[in-house]
């Protein structure tokens, strides 16, 4: 029996793609078998559609978590891709014959040929680099194979290359077992094809040149593949990018310079072998000029000539990429790589991304993504280049339709949903506005990684909103503190997803019942308060949030007083909690003001609490006008009466002085009371009080101290300006020493 026609290739090889087409033209096969997962046959019709523009990739992923993926990228110059196109043009049949992705992903080790890790392969390639010298195996391959002058040369060259590579790795390496399995499967597929009645002479088998030797004995295949491990997988087509191709260099997965390889491909198509070398420099020069670095045409010509001379020195017929780059450095960059590095990156890697026709993406979430991009007029951000967008969430009154008026708001919802899903497509930047309410600043950049995350999100829901809501639900379920849930509520509002917000609110309510931490309650209350205050710009319905805020607030009122029994260190946290609760209460009229005042009064009045907090509560009451001058006086005299321990009295004053300083300064009688109190202290007590008072006055500005000095001057009968000078002077060394010694004071009672 005849053998089928084997054609060994290197994945992503322009010469391979070109000569494969020549080969197919000569053989005119009925059936072409291509190395690629056998369950991918259904995507062939989408790959060949007119609107499909490579680079594209097939992504297979497991249906269950943890999600494992493998990726098969195709560039325009992929031999496999050209084989697919050829078969489509000639009505020949094409089939993938490698292990199905469901088996691939079930194997314990992913196949390094396609998957992320390249460790196993690297060793052999490092060895190859040593053998090849001159820029390593990539350059060797380019000089020998990509510049092959004829179909014959390529065909035999690739076969020999593969066979030699095989003899170096056969039987060793971690992935050898996998190779054996894959080749056995491919052999069986070939045999099946022949058994189905096709003359082997009418079959072309396209595989990596490495596998050609392994498939030769296809006739002996009689393996049974029933027992192979399997997992449930899905696969989808997705756009890919040259940048991503370049980062996964190595045998199968990518190549270092996709944009340059596409120039090689263009050269083949034009039948113009020198095309790649001059267009490389022309493109480079164009990029350099665009970015403000003048490059003369003369330099370009010199670079082309130098590259040719460099290739000749290596006995190459045409310059390889390393020759081109070195010539660019010498002639255009004046000897320094840094001068041309951006240009070479653009010329060698490029920013090309692929496109797919509408509806081809297999997961509905991708469909949803592209539909929304279109609907929200964000298509121009579908690019590998990072771009800014400023959103104004307010209604645009100059346009007619409601959709147009709120387009930025809907964009914001969409981008926030993507953010919640952790795709890298959109990242939010800080804006100048504090508490950003109506303005948002985003950076948008599409990348295959973003798309991959999106596809993985398909497990969470069919639409972006659906997946985001699932994600938020999970976050709520795993939340351990109210703060986390409050964040989810916030996110839900940013995403414009009321239901998720309500769900999270309910969860929050349940958690709030058991919370006794005032700090947590205050923090959460404040977050909710902001959402309710500014939510209308995002069309958030505040109704479901109001009851929970009331509840949280009420609970905070209940536990606040007992929280005030604490030491000085903890008092700072409580102070900020009180402050937050107070501002929340002031912002919303549906909260229980009466209860709040009652709590504050109680804290201000009771002697058994931290005196600083009592003082602070009094300060708030004073500020809110809930404490008249009369009761302030009473309170001051009571707190600062003789016999009260100095640190307690002064601590109280410190709390009182934390707010509305002007109100205090204006009340002369207050200072009188303080003065009388201080004179009653013994020296020892005075030292204690001094520490607290110093701290209390640290927050006052010079002008404020000035006014206090005037008050004191009045009381003590001194000249105001003299007193002011005394209180505003920076301490000299000896006084500082005395004060420092007070720090060692024993405060244990």
């Amino acid at each position, binding site marked *: 029996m005849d053998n089928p026609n084997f054609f060994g290739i290197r994945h992503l090889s322009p010469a391979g793609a070109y000569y494969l087409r020549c080969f197919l033209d000569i053989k005119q096969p009925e059936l072409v078998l291509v190395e690629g997962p056998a369950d991918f046959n259904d995507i062939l019709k989408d790959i060949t559609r007119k609107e499909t523009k490579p680079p594209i990739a097939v992504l297979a992923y497991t249906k269950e978590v943890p999600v494992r993926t493998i990726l098969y990228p195709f560039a325009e110059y992929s031999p496999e891709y050209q084989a697919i196109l050829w078969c489509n043009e000639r009505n020949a049949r094409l089939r993938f014959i490698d292990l199905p992705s469901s088996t691939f992903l079930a194997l314990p080790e992913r196949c390094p040929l396609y998957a992320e890790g390249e460790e196993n392969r690297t060793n052999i390639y490092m060895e190859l680099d040593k053998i090849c010298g001159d820029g390593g195996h990539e350059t060797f391959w380019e000089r020998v194979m990509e510049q092959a002058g004829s179909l014959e040369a390529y065909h035999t060259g690739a076969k020999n290359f593969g066979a030699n590579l095989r003899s170096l790795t056969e039987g060793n390496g971690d992935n050898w077992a996998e190779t054996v399995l894959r080749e056995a499967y491919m052999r069986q597929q070939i045999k099946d094809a022949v058994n189905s009645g096709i003359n082997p002479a009418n079959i072309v088998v396209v595989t990596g040149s490495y596998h050609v030797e392994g498939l030769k004995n296809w006739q002996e295949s009689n393996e049974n593949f029933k027992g192979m491990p399997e997992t449930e997988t899905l696969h989808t087509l997705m756009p890919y990018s040259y940048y991503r191709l370049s980062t996964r260099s190595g045998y199968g997965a990518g190549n270092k310079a996709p944009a340059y390889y596409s120039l090689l491909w263009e050269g083949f198509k034009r039948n113009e072998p020198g095309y790649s070398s001059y267009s490389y420099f022309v493109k480079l020069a164009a990029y350099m000029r665009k970015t403000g670095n003048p490059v*003369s045409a*003369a*330099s370009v010509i*010199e670079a082309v*000539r*130098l590259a*040719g*001379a*460099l290739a*000749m*020195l*290596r006995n190459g017929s045409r310059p390889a990429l390393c020759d081109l780059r*070195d*010539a660019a450095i*010498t*002639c255009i960059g*004046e*000897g*320094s790589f840094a001068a041309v590095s951006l240009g070479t990156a653009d010329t060698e890697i490029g920013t090309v991304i692929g496109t797919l026709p509408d509806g081809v993406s297999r997961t509905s979430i991708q469909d949803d993504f592209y539909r929304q991009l279109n609907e929200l007029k964000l298509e121009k951000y579908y690019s590998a280049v990072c771009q800014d967008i400023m959103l104004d969430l307010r209604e645009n009154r100059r346009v007619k339709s409601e959709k147009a008026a709120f387009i930025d708001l809907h964009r914001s919802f969409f981008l926030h949903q993507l953010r919640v899903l952790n795709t890298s497509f959109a990242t939010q930047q800080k804006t100048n506005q504090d508490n950003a309410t109506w303005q948002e600043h985003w950076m948008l950049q599409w990348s295959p990684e973003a798309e991959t995350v999106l596809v993985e999100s398909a497990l969470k829901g069919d639409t972006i909103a659906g997946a985001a809501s699932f994600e938020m639900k999970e976050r709520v379920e795993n939340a351990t503190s109210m703060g986390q849930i409050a964040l989810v509520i916030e996110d839900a509002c940013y995403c414009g997803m009321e239901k998720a917000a309500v769900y999270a609110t309910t969860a929050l309510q349940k958690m709030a019942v058991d919370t006794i931490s005032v700090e947590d309650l205050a923090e959460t209350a404040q977050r909710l308060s902001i959402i309710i205050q500014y939510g209308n710009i995002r069309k958030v319905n505040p109704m479901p949030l109001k009851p929970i805020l009331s509840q949280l607030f009420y609970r905070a009122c209940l536990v606040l007083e007992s929280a005030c029994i604490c030491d000085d260190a903890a008092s700072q946290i409580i102070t900020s909690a009180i402050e937050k609760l107070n501002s929340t209460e002031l912002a919303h009229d549906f909260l229980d003001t009466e209860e709040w005042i009652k709590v504050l009064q109680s804290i201000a009045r009771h002697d058994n609490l931290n005196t600083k907090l009592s003082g602070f509560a009094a300060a708030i009451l004073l500020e809110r006008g809930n404490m008249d001058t009369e009761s302030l006086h009473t309170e001051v005299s009571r707190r600062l009466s003789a016999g009260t321990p100095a640190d307690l009295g002064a601590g109280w004053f410190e709390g009182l002085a934390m707010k509305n300083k002007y109100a205090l300064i204006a009340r002369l009688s207050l200072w009188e009371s303080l003065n009388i109190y201080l004179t009653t202290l013994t020296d020892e007590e005075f030292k204690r009080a001094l520490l607290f008072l110093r701290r209390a006055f640290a927050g006052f500005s010079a002008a404020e101290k000035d006014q206090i000095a005037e008050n004191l001057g009045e009381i003590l009968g001194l000249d105001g300006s003299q007193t002011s000078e005394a209180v505003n002077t920076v301490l000299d060394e000896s006084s500082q020493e005395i004060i420092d010694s007070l720090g060692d004071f024993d405060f244990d009672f």
Partner: protein
Amino acid sequence: MEEQILRLPAEQLFQNEIDALIKAEKHPVPAGWNMSPQSVKTYICGGEVNGTKITPKYIGHERLVEIAISTLVTDRALLLTGEPGTAKSWLSEHLTAAINGCSTKVVQGTAGTTEEQIKYSWNYAMLVSKGPSIEAMLKSPVFNAMETGTIARVEEISRCASEVQDALISLLSEKRISVPELALEVPAQKGFSVIATANTRDKGVNEMSAALKRRFNIVILPAPANLESEMEIVNTRVSQLSMNLDLNASLPEEDVVEKVCTIFRELRNGETLDHKQKVKGTSGVLSTAEAISLLCNSMALAGSFGSGTITDTDLASALQGAVIKDEEKDNIAWKEYLENIMKKRGSEWSGLYMACKELSGE
């Protein structure tokens, strides 16, 4: 007679290698060249032809040598730049020696170089007595190179005044020289080119104009990439030099070369070889060339006034001389290096450390 010459030009020093290469030529030879570009590369980077060993002249960075040769193949002028002591002139001398068998068409660029030295001047006695004539004309090396289709060298081009540099522009772009006094136009023969060298440290002296730069392909020669290649360079050069100079001392031991190269590299790069410790740099460049001359000096010292082998004391005084250029600052940096790095290096270094310490001690 020949033995009296202090320094033979490269083409005479390596005559047998050049002859062997020419004899074994297999590749096409460009017009005006003595050998093919491939052979030039073998001459520079070393190898073997028909049993004759070719000593490497420039070690490391083979790719740069290829770029330099290719530049000359495309009849472009070549500009070699880099820090002082990175073998710019050395490479340019050997390139011309291999390509033309003549490395002596040199214009040394200085602040006093005039346009005449680039083009031509006159024998004034003859000019006055006989009027302008070809006989009365004194051709510059560049003029000569154009007539013979060979390569002229311009050393330290950035030290020349800009009008002198500009004189080169028309020569390089028109590839012809005009002598208006004689109504003469001399076209350059095939094979004519110029190799210029410029020092990046002296950049500010006379910055090259963009117009001139554009006529050159620029290759930047870096310092040796690693300790091994630097040691190889130093070893090769020191043994060649000591033969020339008849120094009555044995060649430095491997560990002496290693120590000198290590110290130079560490002070040059501002960190220790293992990248773990920062080192304060010195004001001098501490190039490979300087390491070579340092070792030769030490050999001369040891040969004339010492035991014939380089001792730690010889090395210490040579090192101190090389490192400390700008008194105060370098002195501090050197002392810090001695205390922080060298002292902690263990017994192998302790002899050198003690000697250096003794010298630098007040």
